[in-house]
């Protein structure tokens, strides 16, 4: 059986003035269905580029990205939009909820673009919000909620379309440590329920919540393996200086 996410020698080049920047440098990796993977790296390591490519917001300059067997590099904008809609659920650092819509309407958005009829859409959105413990706030606006609650709305929105991959980009970055732990617990639960979760973070302690860590530096994979192994939380630059306590 082929992997759910497969990078084959993927590179991404950006033109910055006269210089070409290689944000992803021949990355190859595989993520299977049902895994909980953290992609870790400092800023500039290429993890944002990776996340954009995994999220089908961007396509590789070189190499092949297969999502559930589909070659994303060959797709046009409309096909990319459709695959984002069907296969991916995004959780953003800044929640990215639409402030003018109610919670229910926010969660309905992916279903609306999938062409789900209104009544069914509302029902599914309600169920997803209830699962996140927000069943009593369906008609409220996002800004009436705390950060943790807003992030739970965005998790509900990510889950409602039953996507193949949940892609969480620094999901705890804007939260205090307690709410951050709650959100991570929810991601654990989401994973336990059989979903594939890809977590993008710069924070080793958060990355260790995942089963597996893929560590990036300068656009290359420098570690790919169990999250509990000691070398998983050590970057190349740090190894030169000695192990982390």
């Amino acid at each position, binding site marked *: 059986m082929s992997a759910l996410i497969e990078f084959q020698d993927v590179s991404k080049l950006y033109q910055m003035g006269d210089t070409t920047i290689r944000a992803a440098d021949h990355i190859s990796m595989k993520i299977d269905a049902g895994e909980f993977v953290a992609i870790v790296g400092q800023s500039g390591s290429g993890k944002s580029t990776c996340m954009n490519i995994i999220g089908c917001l961007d396509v590789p300059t070189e190499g092949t990205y297969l999502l559930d067997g589909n070659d994303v590099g060959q797709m046009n904008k409309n096909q990319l939009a459709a695959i984002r809609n069907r296969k991916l659920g995004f959780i953003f650092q800044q929640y*990215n909820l639409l402030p003018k819509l109610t919670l229910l309407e926010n969660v309905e958005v992916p279903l609306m673009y999938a062409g789900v009829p209104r009544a069914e859409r509302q029902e599914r959105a309600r169920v997803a919000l209830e699962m996140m413990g927000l069943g009593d706030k369906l008609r409220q606006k996002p800004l009436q909620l705390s950060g943790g609650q807003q992030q739970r709305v965005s998790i509900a929105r990510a889950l409602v379309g039953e996507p193949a991959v949940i892609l969480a980009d620094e999901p705890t970055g804007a939260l205090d440590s307690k709410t951050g732990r709650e959100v991570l617990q929810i991601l654990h639960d989401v994973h336990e329920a059989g979903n594939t979760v890809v977590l993008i973070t710069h924070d080793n302690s958060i990355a260790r919540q995942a089963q597996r860590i893929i560590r990036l530096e300068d656009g290359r994979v420098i570690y790919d393996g169990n999250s509990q192994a000691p070398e998983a939380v050590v970057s190349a630059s740090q190894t030169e200086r000695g192990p982390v306590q």
Partner: protein
Amino acid sequence: MKLSESFRLALKNIVASKVRTLLTMLGIIIGVTAVIVIVGLGNGMEKYMTDSFSDMGTNLLTVMIPGRGSSRSVSVDQMYTIVAENPEYFDQLSPTVSMSGTVKIGTETADSTSVTGVSEDYFNMAGYAVASGRGLEYVDVAGRKNVCVIGSYLAQTYYSGSAVGQTIKVGANKLTIVGVMAQEADEMESGGTDDCIYLPYSTAARLSGTGTISSYSISVINEDAISESKAALESALYQIFEDDDAYMVTSMAELLDTMTSMINVLIIVLALIAAISLVVGGIGIMNIMLVSVTERTKEIGIRKALGAKERSIMQQFVIEAATTSTLGGLLGIAFGYLLSGIATLVIASLLEVDMAVTPTFGSILLAVGVSVAIGVVFGYLPAKKAARLNPIDALRYD
């Protein structure tokens, strides 16, 4: 995404920023209001003129023979021959002799009464009806009898309605009233259509001492062919006079046509000037939509990340612009009607003219159509800009 969804989103956004939407719509509102009122005004003017002219008879040709510049003249019999020889054009003929002379009823004087000598066919030609007594008859004309039919104004004012059999004096001549006309105008007033006396033209010619009759009315068979009828009459008269300065044929219908088309040109020019406001309004909508796209860059990024296609985003913004301008158009129609009503009242009280400013159904359809089109046309560019945004950049936008 379905159109109804886009429409709901658009309404939500419009409701969320009412003041901005209202200001955006202002240009459209003013433009549509102006177009509707101006077209309504033109419509009212045209109707007012048509009504006034049809009182005078749009089926009639009037022949004037000044009697100068030619030694020839035309007799009443010759005129009847012309009518009889052209049955495809002409129906009936009546010589008309206007008389001057004070009208006296007993000791009272009516100053502004018109006194006209006509043939027995005249009432039929002009569409007048006799309410009591009888009309003029051939024997009255042939016998030059001192009889007359009076308008309802005179009958009501001086005879309390029972005028038949009474007498009335025109100058020094006493006439017996044989009939009273039905009321013609909406309001009876001194000097109006109903303040009149008709007597046989032969009598009128005798009483006023004029030998030749210099004015005729001829009714045509087909009102639509009034120009051809006029030409036929002119050529017949030319054969008699061999001088086209010796007679003058006028038709009310042609005069009305000329004036109507002049009013129409004026209205079209005014409406076009008002329509400039629509274009300005459209540019206002485009401007606000461009601002809105920039403000909502993040929203567009989120929607794209969640699976919105370019077409969906495009549709959302175009429909929002079109909804805004359509709402503006509808408000403009409402204001247009309101203003038309006010204008009608103002005209009635200031000019004492009964002219209704009536917006046409066509101008309303046009107003709605133009507003929708403006929204779509001027919303297209901002919508294109929104749809083309790169989702990664848009998501990063703050």
